[in-house]
C-alpha cells in the first residue's frame, strides 16, 4: 500500500488540526468564563462578589496562558524513527502522567479561590432557613471537584506503575 504524497500531507495537517481544535475549545470555554465573570466584576455593586469574580477571571487567564505556553502536542512526533520503542513508549507514558498530575495546578486550582469566595459570600448572605441548602450544595460541588482531582492522581499513579514495569522489563536480562 502506498499513499500519494499530497494525501499524506493533507492527512498530517488534518491530524494536527484535531489537536488545535481541542485546544481552541479550551480557549473558547475560558473566554466564556472571562466574559461572564468579567461582566459580574463590572456590574455587581458589592465588593466581595467583585473580588470573587476578579479571582475567577484571573484564574481563567492563567489557564489560557498555560495552554498557550505548553503549545499543542504533536500528534505524530517527527522523531519517531530516531527513538527506540522502549524510550518512545516511556516518553508517552510520562507525558500523560505529568499531564494528569498537573491538572490540579493549572486547570482546577486557579479557579478555586474565586469559587470558594463566591460560595462563602452566598452562604453568608443567605436567609438562615436556606443557608444549609447552600452549604450542602457547596459541599457536593467541592466533593465532585475533589473526586475529579483524586481520579486524575490515581490514573497518574497507575501510569507510574506502568513506567516502573517498563523499566524493569527493559532492564531485565
Amino acid at each position, binding site marked *: *500500500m*502506498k499513499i500519494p504524497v499530497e494525501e499524506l500531507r493533507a492527512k498530517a495537517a488534518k491530524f494536527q488540526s484535531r489537536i488545535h481544535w481541542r485546544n481552541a475549545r479550551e480557549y473558547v470555554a475560558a473566554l466564556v468564563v472571562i466574559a461572564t465573570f468579567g461582566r459580574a466584576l463590572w456590574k455587581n455593586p458589592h465588593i466581595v462578589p467583585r473580588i470573587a469574580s476578579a479571582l475567577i477571571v484571573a484564574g481563567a487567564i492563567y489557564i489560557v496562558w498555560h495552554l498557550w505556553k505548553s503549545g499543542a502536542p504533536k500528534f505524530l512526533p517527527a522523531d*519517531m524513527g*530516531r527513538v527506540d520503542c522502549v524510550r518512545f513508549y516511556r516518553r*508517552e507514558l510520562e507525558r*500523560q502522567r505529568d499531564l494528569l498530575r498537573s491538572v490540579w495546578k493549572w486547570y482546577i486550582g486557579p479557579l478555586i479561590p474565586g469559587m470558594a469566595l463566591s460560595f462563602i459570600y452566598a452562604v453568608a448572605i443567605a436567609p438562615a432557613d436556606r443557608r444549609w441548602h447552600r452549604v450542602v450544595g457547596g459541599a457536593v460541588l467541592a466533593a465532585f471537584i475533589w473526586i475529579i482531582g483524586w481520579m486524575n492522581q490515581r490514573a497518574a499513579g497507575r501510569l507510574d506503575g506502568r513506567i516502573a514495569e517498563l523499566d524493569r522489563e527493559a532492564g531485565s536480562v
Partner: protein
Amino acid sequence: MGYAPARRDHCALIRHYSFSTITRLCCKKLCAVTTTSDVRGQNDLYEQAATEYGAALARLARGYEGDPDKRRDLLQEIHVALWRSFGGFDGLCSLRTWVYRVAHNAAASHVIRQRRARPHMMVSLEEVDALRIEPETDRNVALSRLTDLIRRLKPLDRQVILAWLDGMDAAEIGELTGLSSGNVATKVHRIKSILARDFQGARNERS
C-alpha cells in the same frame, strides 16, 4: 534550483557580523540550498519504504488493531508518520530499522489512545507461557487465535513477537526496541516455546 550566494554577500557578512552570526546565517543559506532536495529525498524515501515494506506495515497494523475500520485508520497514521519522519532521516540506522521503529511507535501511540477510551487488561509473554491453551492444529484457526493473542500482549512483548514473526533477528529486534540482547533472547525463546506448544498449525507463519 537552489540558492547560489554572490561573492559580495560573503564579504559583506564577514565585515559586519560576528563568527556565531555568520555560522548561523551560513547554516540558514545551506538549508535554503538543500530544502528542495530534502523534500524530494523525503518523498523518495517514503516511496521506497512503502514499496518495500507496505505489506509488512499492513501485517503490523493487523497485529495491533482488530477492528477493521480502526485498523485502516492506524495504517494511514503509520504511513503519514513514516512520510513525516523521513524529513529527519539521518541514515544512522538502516531504512528497515527506521521504518519499523516509526511503525511500532505510531502503533504504540494508537494503543495508548485506545486504552484511554476502553481500558482493557494486557498480558505478558510470561503470563501466556504459564497458561495451558488447548493446542490448535488447524492453520487458519491457529493464526486467528495467535493474532488475537498478540493483540492482548503488552506493547513491548507485542513489538518483539511481531518483529520476530517478520523475520528480524535478535540484534535487529534489540536495535528496534532498545531491549538488551539477553532480554530479546529470553523473549524470543518464550515465543518459540508458546508457538510450538499452543499454535502448531501456525508454526510456519514466520516468513
